[in-house]
């Protein structure tokens, strides 16, 4: 993956030495940004969920992701140690400095779109966490142990919704199919290769290259989709730019989630 000259991290930070810290920083920031962006985006459903129980559920999912993002940003600042805290990382970068996957550049859309985006993301994230379960970076392995216990409920919940929409009659199925078709070519961006990935594998920070994780995820998700009578996922479009060149929809979201920070720096509640 190239970054078109964008430097989301000051890549010359102390300790960037043999590539381990640089790769680790890139991994942590991309994961944190993924969780932060989908968490903030799905929190837009709070108060307007399709039914009360689902309003509560999607809000809980979003809350979980924001907490996970906060913990991952915390690990990131410990590695980079450039004086910025987790809030500064979360809120003070320009839109082009975020490293979330292109899948999450899509807006939440309607309910079918939200479910399709979340199902594609949760299944990929679960595969990524599995590959980090034995990580040599102790703080990451310990956090991943915790995250997997919580994310299990996310996958279970969104997979039940996938089934419900796929078998819910003409309109839900049509909307789901359209959403999967529109986002399918971006789904693999969550597991696209990262700069510095070779060092991550060499140091045992991640169990195997992203290409291997992606292949296994693709096989499992395609089996599930085909089993529901839906098309298998298409190949990933432009994997070289999986985590940059963000959309107008993300720029609007960014303007929203940085609003408080921009208008009242240091605000807490």
């Amino acid at each position, binding site marked *: 993956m190239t970054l078109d000259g964008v430097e989301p991290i000051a890549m010359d930070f102390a300790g960037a030495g043999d590539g381990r810290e640089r790769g680790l920083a890139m991994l942590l920031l991309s994961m944190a940004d993924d969780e932060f962006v989908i968490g903030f985006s799905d929190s837009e459903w709070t108060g307007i969920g399709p039914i009360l*129980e*689902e309003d*509560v*559920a999607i809000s*809980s*999912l979003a*809350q*979980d*992701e*924001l*907490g*996970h993002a*906060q*913990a991952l940003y915390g690990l990131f600042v410990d590695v980079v140690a450039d004086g910025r805290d987790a809030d500064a990382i979360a809120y003070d970068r320009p839109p082009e400095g975020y490293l979330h996957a292109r899948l999450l550049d899509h807006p939440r859309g309607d309910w079918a779109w939200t479910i399709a985006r979340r199902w594609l993301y949760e299944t990929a994230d679960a595969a990524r966490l599995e590959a980090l379960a034995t990580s040599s970076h*102790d*703080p990451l392995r*310990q*956090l991943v*142990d*915790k*995250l997997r*216990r*919580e994310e*299990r*409920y996310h996958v*279970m*919940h969104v997979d039940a919704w996938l089934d419900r929409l796929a078998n819910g009659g003409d309109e839900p199925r049509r909307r789901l199919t359209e959403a999967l078709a529109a986002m399918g070519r971006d789904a693999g961006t969550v597991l696209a290769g990262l700069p510095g990935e070779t060092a991550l594998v060499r140091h045992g920070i991640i169990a195997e290259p992203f290409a291997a994780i992606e292949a296994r995820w693709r096989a499992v998700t395609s089996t599930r989709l085909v089993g529901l009578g839906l098309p298998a996922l298409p190949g990933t479009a432009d994997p070289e730019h999986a985590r940059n060149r963000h959309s107008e929809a993300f720029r609007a979201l960014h303007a929203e989630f940085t609003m408080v920070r921009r208008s009242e720096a240091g605000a807490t509640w």
Partner: protein
Amino acid sequence: MVMSSRHMALGRVPAAGVTRVRAILRTVHDPEIPTVSIVDLGLVHDVRVGPDGGVCVELLPTFVACPALEAIRSTVADALAGLGRPVEVTFVRTVPWTTERLTDAGRAGLAAAGIAPPSAVADVRCPYCDSADVAMDSAFGPTLCRSLFYCRSCRNPFEAFKSV
């Protein structure tokens, strides 16, 4: 010097042993579940009393994003303030809180509050009538740590603590 006189004053207070600190922690309850202490909930990871008498309490968050952490931390600090010792309360993230950390008293306390104790989804029983004829409405309830169930036997909706 102000500091040394304060230390001398503290020196006259009987040492607050770990046992005494733990006894006080038993009086601190989950902010939303008044029938369960944070000890029985398994939140207390470690209690240490330093040579200077300073108390350090390490807690585990049940869920990473739990918004009640600050409330729990300040309640613990307030409860220990009577010891007249420096108190430090921190959350530890290197060890996961798991369902197994709940004590039997904690499980009974959850049931008394109308919340089914954590178990495999297929083994959840109604906290009101003990029926196993229950169905999960939603994995996500009013807090991150609870799911929504319905009892087909006594027709009560109820919550179950998530198993993690």
